[in-house]
């Protein structure tokens, strides 16, 4: 028996669509969101003030070699600013910390008021604080970053939130509601509903190849979907 190709392909397209159609719609919708909202905005570039590059006279500072000499595991000693004051950021095998570059004294972990002050000085909007908490466990939105951090949330429709390292005073994350929606869109796009990061999960692999088959069958169907002139007349006559 000869296969009736148009029927066979239409059935394939239809049945594949029945199983992955919802996911195809979710891909289209989540993809649309991700392309429509600019990634720099998602990253929260607009929330953070870029500090001016100012020259720093090194003669009044404790030499970085002296700072490094105190800790045998030191990998790098780098000049940074902490609320306008010069500090040495030490990256060591034991972790990172900061040292007052003028006195040479190690700066203890930041308390709440200092963390809030740093966050406010970096924020481009009106720094009205909604909450400030020290987290020992990373929330979903900080994913792979290593806690602890100060979570400082500002007033605003998109709930802008800064994460400040208590050990170095650095801004290590910025989140807002459009970022959070993006993260959900990404989760739906890669179909990893737990970690939101595994792009090689079996569910995604099966779904993507099914949609490839559906799309190719759909493309094939187009061949029969545009009747040639002769056929068209016939249809019109019936109508």
């Amino acid at each position, binding site marked *: 028996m000869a296969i009736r190709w148009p029927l066979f392909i239409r059935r394939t397209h*239809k049945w594949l669509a029945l199983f992955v159609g919802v996911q195809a719609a979710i891909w*289209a919708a989540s*993809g649309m969101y991700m392309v429509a909202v600019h990634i720099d905005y998602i990253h929260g570039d607009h929330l953070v003030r870029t500090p001016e590059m100012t020259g720093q006279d090194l003669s009044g500072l404790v*030499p970085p070699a002296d700072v490094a000499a105190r800790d045998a595991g030191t*990998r*790098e*000693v780098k000049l940074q600013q902490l609320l306008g004051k010069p500090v040495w950021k030490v990256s060591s095998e034991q972790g990172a910390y900061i040292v007052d570059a003028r006195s040479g004294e190690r700066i203890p972990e930041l308390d709440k008021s200092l963390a809030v002050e740093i966050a406010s000085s970096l924020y481009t909007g009106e720094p009205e604080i909604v909450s400030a908490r020290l987290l020992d466990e990373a929330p979903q939105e900080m994913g792979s970053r290593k806690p602890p951090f100060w979570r400082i949330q500002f007033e605003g429709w998109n709930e802008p939130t800064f994460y400040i390292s208590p050990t170095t005073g650095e801004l290590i994350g910025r989140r807002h509601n459009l970022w959070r929606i993006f993260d959900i869109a990404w989760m739906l796009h890669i179909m990893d509903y737990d970690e939101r990061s595994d792009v090689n999960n079996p569910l995604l692999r099966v779904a993507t190849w099914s949609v*490839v088959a559906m799309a*190719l069958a759909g493309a094939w169907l187009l061949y029969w979907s545009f009747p040639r002139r002769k056929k068209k007349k016939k249809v019109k006559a019936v109508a």
Partner: protein
Amino acid sequence: MKMESSIKARKSVFTHILWRKIHKWVGLILGLQFVLWSISGAVMALLDAEKVGGHAAPAPAPAISMDETAGPVGSLGSVEAISFRQLADRPVYELTAQGETKVVDARTLEPVEIDKGLAERVAREAFGHETALVSVDRLEKANLEARGHGGPIWRLDFADEENSSSYVSATTGRPLVNRGDTWRTFDFVWMLHNMDYVNRTSFNHPLIIFVAFGTLWLAFTGFYLLFKSFRRREFNWILGRKRTR
């Protein structure tokens, strides 16, 4: 069946016939990109993210060797940025003054030239290469593989299975990135996916927004048409009923 639908169509324009037509025409115009999106998406899901790499940081720099006293920094004057670290076998200062970045030996304060040999040592330490070096090139600015990094850059090709290329900054001697064949395949399909055929970086350009909007139509009209395309008897095999006719 066809007759019936056509008669209904006279009453209202918004029947599934209209949606089927929209689905068909949008499919004709944007179908190729839909196919490319699904194929490139499927390939990206298939390529092992570990092998693709690109997100993992290079191995951490070695601890600073403290056997010799580093020179005083006071004589370096005013700088915008300074960092004290280990570069291969010696401690160095990496400093930026008047917008220009350079590396000086921490003991003598003499400029350090990042030559081929030093770049190779850095690349081997940072990316764990053990195979032979095939070729070394100096790039004045980043190529497509090292995009996002400032030049000049050393490109070092190694004779491993992945045909790895490591990139090391010729200004600071820092390891930048390592690319292999899996990454190259991934990057090609990623280009097909994000439709930025020149720079391969942006997915927020007008072309993709336009096509994505069209595809949203394709997906949604298609989803709606599913309800019009199936008849109850097609589910008999699940419902356990006998085939009629």
